[in-house]
């Protein structure tokens, strides 16, 4: 045991030392930027507690039924419409953005790049832009989420189409059917479950997004949330948060259960 040969001299770990130092500097610099302060944290704590107390029943039911339910329903309708129509628009584009079905590499490249571009636009920024163009309300929110759903579903679906079995498409091509019909009858049946699953996935994200869209004036429950925060009405803010949380959870659970059964 004690007679093993000596290890060679350990080289000084420059990389780790320098790396740790750089990380530490970046961390300190960035936290300073957030104006982090323990005293401010402590001062705000009672507000947070009041907010959580507001979440607890008894709730002022006239606020819930009169003011909360209608925009909540509007939020869900925005999310539903945006995901379904966005997905419908995404379907043909997904075919064009996959090398298996695209008629040539130009169509493929152009649609791919277009989809990448669409997905780089943050939905809140888009919603704010659209709200300033089309006025405040549900419509700009719907448009923003439509673009978002379109981007997500088209990208995911295009990647799925890349992995399909080309055989049925070839077989249908030899019957004299056009490329669109090959995609419709040879490819679509192969990806239909994924298509529905991605639409549901977009819907889940849209419900969450639609609740905050109101903050930039784009309709839904977020508008109410914004005014209640502005009036420092923490009880109502608490109720809105609790109900939103419950609705999002419910939809997420339902939707992901269906998705798991599909694929």
């Amino acid at each position, binding site marked *: 045991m004690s007679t093993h040969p000596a290890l060679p001299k350990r080289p000084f770990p420059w990389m780790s030392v320098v790396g740790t130092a750089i990380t530490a500097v970046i961390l300190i610099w960035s936290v300073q930027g957030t104006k982090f302060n323990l005293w401010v944290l402590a001062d705000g704590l009672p507000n947070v507690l009041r907010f959580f107390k507001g979440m607890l029943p008894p709730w002022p039911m006239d606020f819930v039924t009169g003011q909360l339910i209608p925009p909540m329903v509007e939020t869900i309708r925005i999310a539903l419409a945006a995901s379904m129509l966005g997905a419908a628009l995404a379907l043909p584009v997904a075919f064009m953005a996959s090398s298996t079905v695209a008629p040539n590499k130009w169509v493929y490249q152009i649609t791919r790049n277009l989809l990448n571009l669409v997905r780089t636009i943050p939905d809140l920024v888009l919603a704010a832009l659209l709200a300033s163009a089309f006025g405040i309300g549900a419509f700009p929110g719907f448009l923003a989420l439509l673009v978002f759903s379109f981007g997500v579903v088209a990208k995911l679906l295009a990647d799925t189409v890349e992995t399909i079995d080309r055989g*049925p498409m070839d*077989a249908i091509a*030899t019957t*004299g*059917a*056009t490329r669109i019909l090959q995609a419709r009858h040879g490819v679509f049946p192969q990806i239909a479950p994924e298509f529905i699953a991605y639409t549901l996935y977009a819907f889940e994200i849209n419900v969450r997004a639609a609740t905050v869209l109101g903050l930039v004036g784009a309709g839904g429950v977020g508008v109410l949330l914004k005014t209640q925060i502005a009036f420092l009405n923490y009880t109502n803010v608490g109720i809105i948060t609790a109900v939103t949380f419950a609705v999002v959870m419910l939809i997420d659970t339902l939707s992901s259960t269906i998705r798991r059964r599909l694929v």
Partner: protein
Amino acid sequence: MSDVSTGVAAKAATLVSFKNTSVTYPNGFTALTDVNLEFHEGEFIVVVGLSGAGKSTLIRTINRLVPPTGGDVNVLGTPIRNISDANLRKTRRRIGMIFQNYNLVRRSSVLANVLTGRLGDLPTWRALLGLYTKSDTDLAIKCLTRVGILDKAYNRADQLSGGQQQRVAIARALAQQPRILLADEPVASLDPPTAHQVMRDLKALSREEGLLTIVNLHFVDMAMEYADRVIGLHAGTVVYDGPGADMTEADFERIYQRKIRPDDMRGAAEH
């Protein structure tokens, strides 16, 4: 056409004629060199040769899955080398094709798969919506009855055995109401008894419907057993063209460039 051995075909119409046809792939590989052949209505033709001899290319040139790069092929009265897309689709409607891997839409029902054979003849809007007419469905049912699997019409294609899936593929091709049936290694994925069953089905169809049928096979004994006429290919040229029964040892060796071996036979002895 002067071939006396194919008595039936001699008077029958010429459906496919290769005229000095050559095929060179984009990668530079020459698969067919100066092929001259005529195929007639009702003929049952088996193409044999080693892998890479050009069997698949020969078949796929007929429906232009592979375009000829030299000479031309006349298919159902149309030269196909410089054919327009629209005319190609029109020509393809009357050419059924079956594949080694069946190429069915696995998640779709058997009936839905057979109906895709009708797409070429439907107006675009109907085809897009999948609104087949009553006569399309009737025809699909007839085709499924013809191959003996009508009872599986509403099963998903992937629930069927290999032999049954190949029969669905045959029904799909029949639903096109074709004049030519191409079969690219149709029995290569099947066990010997099933392989023989599929070959018997193809042969019977050819007889009864007057279909020109061209089948690629790897196995010489099967070729001899079923073919009216055997085409032997070696390195992209036709080295044998005649009745299967007349093939001699020397003909085999010209096609395979070696003595015949047991693994060139599918064999009836295995079952």
